[in-house]
């Protein structure tokens, strides 16, 4: 009998703990799929609303673009006018507290926002230069409505422009999320940064890179990366596609793809990567810290435009290997230069290698790692083998 009491007691405790009392029917909510963050620039509707009394004390610092999926009651099941029915709509709100802005939307929409399906957060470069990224994302990280799997991007242009798609039939936020996933198949695109990863990175104070979005009049592409400095959590520069590719070689996250280079005559040579591995060794002698990056790769010669040269010739293969090696070395040296001299940050993951291999040294330089890294010596060692030349030798 005592057990019964215990069981019922536990059940009731559970009932009291849940707090799931409020039913929120799915159709009574607005599905929020993307958030854009821009430098404050109130939209016309907002200005009009404010003139007519819809305003509150605030400093205009950020303009948020909420991308929602609007639903209209279908008049009759027979004819649904798809053309008039946009797949998404963007609403803008300017202010200083993110959460207040989100809640303010309730005064402008009949249904509350549902944040579970936020797929992307796009921050414009301009805003990232001015305001620390952790301040911008604080609310998102604390709020338990928005999922930690949400991806964060930096856009070259305004975020509100990125969140617009001209080819109808696509919701831009969903497209962006798909783009990032798809992009990870190519090695010149960074793996997407989700809020979960970002949370840890920001708190540890390290410098990091975020995927860049560049938009044309009717297309958005993932291109390069933005560098955020750990010290002030602000945007300090960007890396080109080539530099991102070099970074992924250094980090050993290359899964496939190509290396393209030219021979002496200017003919195209292309190497298809079968496997790629990298090993970073941290060395310390006194105050000097140096790194040795060894890269091993196997692949096949997939394209040579020098049609006279038989591809199965030993010397030719050796020569081609040399070209590819050189190309890889150049790429990585250039990137190292960008990291150490231009931006003076470590975004290549060297800090982790040092931390693991030499914890004692790491503790000394931890506080000032970015500048220590900028002074340290990095050597590359590339071992690249062309295994075969495909199914045709001629």
């Amino acid at each position, binding site marked *: *009998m005592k057990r*019964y*009491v215990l069981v*019922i*007691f536990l*059940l*009731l*405790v*559970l*009932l*009291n703990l*849940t707090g*799931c009392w409020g*039913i*929120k*029917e*799915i*159709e009574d*909510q607005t*599905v929020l*799929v993307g958030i854009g963050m821009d430098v404050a620039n109130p939209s016309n509707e907002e200005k009009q609303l404010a003139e007519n009394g819809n305003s509150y004390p605030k400093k205009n610092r950020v303009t948020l673009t909420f991308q929602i*999926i609007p*639903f*209209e*009651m*279908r008049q009759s*099941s027979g004819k649904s006018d798809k053309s008039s029915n946009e797949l998404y709509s963007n609403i803008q709100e300017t202010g200083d507290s993110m959460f207040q802005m989100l809640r303010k939307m309730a005064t402008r929409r009949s249904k509350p926002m*549902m944040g*579970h*399906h936020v*797929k992307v957060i796009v921050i414009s470069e301009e805003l990232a230069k001015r305001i620390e990224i952790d301040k911008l994302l604080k609310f998102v990280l604390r709020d338990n409505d928005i*999922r930690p799997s949400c991806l964060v991007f930096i856009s070259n242009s305004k975020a509100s422009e990125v969140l617009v798609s001209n080819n109808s039939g696509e919701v831009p936020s*969903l497209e962006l999320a798909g783009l990032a996933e798809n992009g990870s198949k190519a090695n010149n695109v960074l793996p997407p940064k989700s809020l979960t990863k970002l949370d840890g990175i920001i708190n540890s104070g390290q410098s990091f890179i975020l995927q860049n979005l560049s938009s044309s009049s009717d297309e958005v592409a993932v291109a390069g990366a933005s560098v955020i400095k750990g010290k002030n959590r602000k945007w300090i520069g960007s890396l080109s596609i080539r530099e991102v590719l070099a970074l992924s070689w250094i980090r050993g996250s290359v899964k496939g793809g190509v290396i393209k280079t030219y021979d002496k005559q200017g003919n195209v040579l292309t190497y298809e990567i079968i496997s790629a591995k990298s090993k970073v060794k941290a060395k310390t002698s006194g105050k000097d810290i140096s790194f040795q990056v060894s890269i091993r790769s196997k692949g096949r010669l997939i394209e040579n435009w020098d049609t006279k040269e038989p591809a199965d010739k030993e010397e030719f293969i050796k020569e081609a290997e040399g070209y590819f090696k050189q190309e890889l070395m150049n790429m990585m040296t250039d990137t190292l230069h960008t990291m150490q001299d231009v931006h003076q940050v470590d975004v290549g993951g060297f800090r982790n290698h040092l931390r693991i291999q030499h914890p004692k040294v790491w503790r000394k330089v931890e506080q000032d790692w970015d500048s220590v890294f900028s002074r340290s010596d990095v050597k590359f060692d590339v071992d690249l083998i062309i295994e075969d030349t495909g199914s045709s030798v001629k």
Partner: protein
Amino acid sequence: MWKFIVSHFPGWDVVFQAIMLLVLPVVFYFLSNWVKSRLSNRSYAKSKEASTAGAVSNSDDEEFAGEQPVTGNYDHDLSVLKQQAVNHCDIHIREFTIGRANRAAVLYVDGLYDKNLMDTQVLESLMNKGGGGTSTSQEIPITKENLVNQILPVSQVSDTGQLDQVVEDILTGVVALLVEGLEEILMISGSAGNSRGIEEPVSEGLLRGPRAGFTETLSDNTALLRRHGKNESLQMIKFKVGERAQKNLIVAYMRDIANSELVDEVIRRIEAIDMDYLPESGYVEQLIEDNSLSPFQQVQSTERPDRVIGALMEGRVAILLDGTPFVLIVPVTFSMLLQSPEDYYERWIPASLLRLLRFFTAFLAVFTPAIYISFISFNQGLIPTELVVTIIESRLSVPFPSIIEALIMEVSIEILREAGIRLPKPIGPAMGIVGGLIIGDAAVNAGIISPFLVIVVAVTAISSFAIPSYSTGITLRMLRFLAMFFAAFLGLFGTVMFFILVCSHLAKLKSFGVAYISPLSPFRWNDWKDFIFRMPFKLMNRRPILMKTRDSTRRNK
């Protein structure tokens, strides 16, 4: 200081919750105690009543019946019998003469006795051979021995010296033969009458397997079991159950397989049955089961002899009741209810997959609407974004919350199903049209339910019909409604809680001393070979260990 303490006092709502937390368990505790005591009191009172009633009836018997021996006086005996049969208009008395002098009479109940046998074997033999009549054959003196040994070509003949016993026996289908000058009355049994032919069971269809099903006749059913092969160890013990109308009940088991404790327990419970009449084995089932408050059946009923034989070979006990084709099997485990005899007739890989599918459908039948409700009303974040868009679009025109919407459909489906069973066959197809068109399509067009829900309900309904045991299907359908309320109350959390509740109930449930969800718990690896998967026969060398059988090996390698 005081201010600080006061400022940290909880609000009234928290206090209320705390009080509820304390009060409700106590209330529940007393409530459950009260229910239990009510139940046990009632059964106690009933048994007490029964014992006193028995005493009363005994005294009644003494009052009017007494011992009434057959006097040998034909006229007197006949008049006594006639007097007793006055209230039984179906007792027929046919008087005739054996030979020249010996008057005789047969008493029988119309319909209970085989007319053909009566006419040719009894009347004809007596009229022709006994005494000769017009025939020239030598006359046989009419004595009991001569009648039994030479004249009556009937297998079962007994005699009685008690007059008061005669009418009672006639009512069970025996023919009484009263002959002038005999000290006893001959009782000729051979009651048969009209038994149904052996047909394929309606409730448990198989694609591959014997087409034979049990009938309403007990002797046919026992014969069906015997016919499965020569087997001396198949024991059948006969009981009489029912106080007002007695019926035969047979407990069957394999002597060298079944655990004797189990057999004893079954017999004990059968003997304890106290009921005026048992029309069907469902009565027996409910009177001998362990936990009558559980929604799950703890006794399996089947129409298939092959299933019964299979169960007997596993060391289980079968209970056959006269007048019903449903035979009970005890003890039962939950996995048995999701198994079909076909699992053993098909090859093991497809059979295992189908069995796995059935476990899955059992889950679907209970939880699909609940999961739908919790997703729609609480946990929208768990639906893929693209699906969210579709669902919202389809639900915009629906004015009800998801629980009401689901209830409308689920209840309609249950009504349809119930009506479909009760309806005469020619109207049956009309049900399908009404159900399919009106409920399915028109309800969506009318905007009271969303198309998405139609899929959910359809999947649930089909799943519940995929379960081989009909009673289990009912149980699961009933639990589905509970699950829906839990889901509407607490979302996915409630659904999971309900799942845990059901699981813990199942884990505690026992059927004749065997854990209901064994071999899952208590865990018996060997029995897993015939649990979710049906392993090849080569691996199934041992009988279920949980049955504690006398002979544990099924095959000698």
